[in-house]
């Protein structure tokens, strides 16, 4: 077991899979000579050469499509988006081509490709660079979507994504890359579609994914001081979503709070709530609450930016609300 940063765990995953399988390659902006805009690909160009670590021009639509084409004929590209905000320029290639090739061809084609990069607020970057796309990509059949919170899950899910025969979208986080955590030595594959109970509890379920996990841990530690034992379920995958794990934790605690960084309107959390209300209604002792980013564009000013994002106090308030401890 070694402690390492999230970015180092991703780097290990890439290096291991590229060494194991010569069809795996990495392409994107600044992935080579610059060692990655967030240093995820550090050292890979020197080790694997310029055909396998490809520095692209700033042409997101073009290089995402080139990745899809390569995947259609046997390669296994990993396409790095410098941030997911830039993938809006390439979304046609991801959702209209990669996600639909199997279907349009009646099962003749497969498209084993990974699109990965940071999503969410990076810190003081204003509205064009601070967005979550959870619900955008997980809305579509034909792709898988993962959003790991910890270095261990980041490594294990990226390796699984690279080996998967389907297109996989992976959301990382600018503010996750420097986070440290334990990563087991040796081969590590985290299955796509499996959530994990990261903290056991019996009083309330907090369901989350990606960076919000850390605020949920803070909130749970505070709540424990007041005798409330919260269970934290980290979804890790958004499509397929681990419905069984969601229902299990709700049946155990009878109360749930869903926490996400993105906007409330049609957010991914709404899908989690719908699963709970339609399949575990009789187990609920209180309506499910959501904690989300505020329904506004992200601002640059520090105080505005902080106010927009969920944090531990807002999670604590929601938990107390579903436990009828305080007036909402």
């Amino acid at each position, binding site marked *: 077991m070694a402690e390492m940063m999230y970015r180092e765990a991703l780097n290990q995953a890439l290096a291991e899979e590229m060494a*194991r*399988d*010569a*069809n*795996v*390659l990495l392409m994107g902006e600044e992935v*080579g*000579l610059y060692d990655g805009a967030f240093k995820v690909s550090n050292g890979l*160009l*020197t080790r694997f*050469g*310029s*055909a*396998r670590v*490809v*520095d*692209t*021009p700033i*042409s997101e*639509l*073009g*290089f*995402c*499509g*080139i*990745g*899809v*084409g*390569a*995947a*259609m*004929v*046997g*390669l*296994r*590209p990993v396409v790095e988006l410098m941030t997911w905000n830039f993938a809006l320029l390439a979304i*046609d*290639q991801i959702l*209209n*081509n990669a996600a639909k*090739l*199997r*279907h*349009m*061809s*009646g*099962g*003749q*084609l*497969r498209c084993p490709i990974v699109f990965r990069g940071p999503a969410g607020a990076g810190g003081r970057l204003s509205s064009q660079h601070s967005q979550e796309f959870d619900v955008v990509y997980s809305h579509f*059949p*034909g792709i*898988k979507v993962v959003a790991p919170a910890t270095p261990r899950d980041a490594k294990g899910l990226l390796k699984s994504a690279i080996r998967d*025969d*389907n297109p996989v979208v992976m959301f990382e986080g600018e503010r996750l890359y420097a986070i440290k955590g334990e990563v087991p030595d040796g081969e590590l594959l985290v299955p796509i579609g499996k959530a994990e109970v990261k903290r056991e509890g019996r009083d309330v379920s907090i369901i989350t994914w990606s960076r919000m996990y850390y605020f949920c841990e803070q909130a749970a530690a505070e709540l424990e001081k007041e005798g409330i034992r919260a269970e934290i379920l980290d979804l890790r995958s958004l499509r397929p979503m681990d419905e069984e794990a969601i229902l299990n934790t709700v049946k155990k605690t009878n109360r749930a709070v869903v926490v996400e960084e993105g906007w409330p309107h049609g957010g991914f959390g709404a899908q989690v709530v719908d699963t709970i209300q339609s399949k575990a209604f009789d187990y609920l002792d209180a309506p499910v609450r959501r904690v989300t980013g505020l329904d506004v564009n992200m601002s640059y000013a520090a105080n505005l930016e902080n106010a927009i994002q969920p944090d531990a106090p807002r999670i604590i308030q929601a938990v107390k609300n579903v436990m009828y401890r305080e007036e909402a």
Partner: protein
Amino acid sequence: MGSAIPREKLLTMYRKMVLIRRFEERAGQQYGLGKIAGFCHLYIGQEAVVVGAVEATRPDDFMLTGYRDHGHALARDAHAGMVMAELFGRTGGYSKGKGGSMHLFDIEHYFYGGYGIVGGQIPLAAGMAFASRYRNDDRITLCFFGDAAANQGSFHETLNMASKWKLPVLYICENNRYGMGTAFERVSAESEIYKRAPAYDMRGEVVDGMDVREVYELIKDCAGEVRSKKKPVLVEARTYRYRGHSMADPATYRTKGEVEQYRHNDPIPKLREQILKDKSAGEQELDRIDAEVKKVVDEAIRFADQSPEPSLDELWVDTIVEPGEPDVRPRERVLGVQVDWPSFPSGQELKVTWELEPKEKATKKTG
């Protein structure tokens, strides 16, 4: 143009062009009968482009196009009945009726599809050519697209990368002069599309797309260069569609005279006359080909009519590949015949020797 093209080749080109013409005429008719729905973009008038290009390249070169794709599948020897069944939305179609007119795929014949978003296939083609370079095989990729696609960002972004990375891809623009109802020159600062190639340090050529022999000769030359020099080439084939953009389009934006003018320049009678003049074949032999084609198309309609609708169970497959799930081989599934299927080296067999960038450029400056 001389008669350097072998007799057999000329007759094959004649047969394929007539096949596409008759197939499309009957498809239009079946649309009128309500057996085909949705968008149905006919290739009538443009036959010389795909047929000349396919006959000038290898059958295992990767190929893809936009949504006006029936002719491309047929030129690559797809089963005409299975193409028609796809248009009918039947289980005997290449995609089990899931794709329809715009999404024909025949992977057995290295035809990687028809794409419904204008220009969306242009980067895919570069990616397939990237894979050929990466594996150091000598296959090239043929990518067809319409004139309107040359105004998409995907065209410009991809040509830049394909040229810079020296990808073996041959881009063939089928300039039929209209993007739906908008004449290309009405919306294009530079309406001679082949002139856009030098901006990306590429060879650009223009050819009369109504003359299959000229298309054949030029594509043969360009494909040879793409294969040997590993660089992309852009060819603009000037052509014309006799029908509207799709079956839903009465094409009121062009004059009767203009259409008539192109009909006088029809590529099929033109090739027929050339063949007769060259004495490559006689009237009788060409008539026999016409009759055979008619039978193939009649049979294609019968085949499609008899093919059942897909089962509702089909809704739940072909979206996500499950572990261990093989790819569907259409002729094997529908006709029960054994087929060869494209295969590529595994990641354990493959040794990548290609340097995409010269080593000195892709190394860190020190000091």
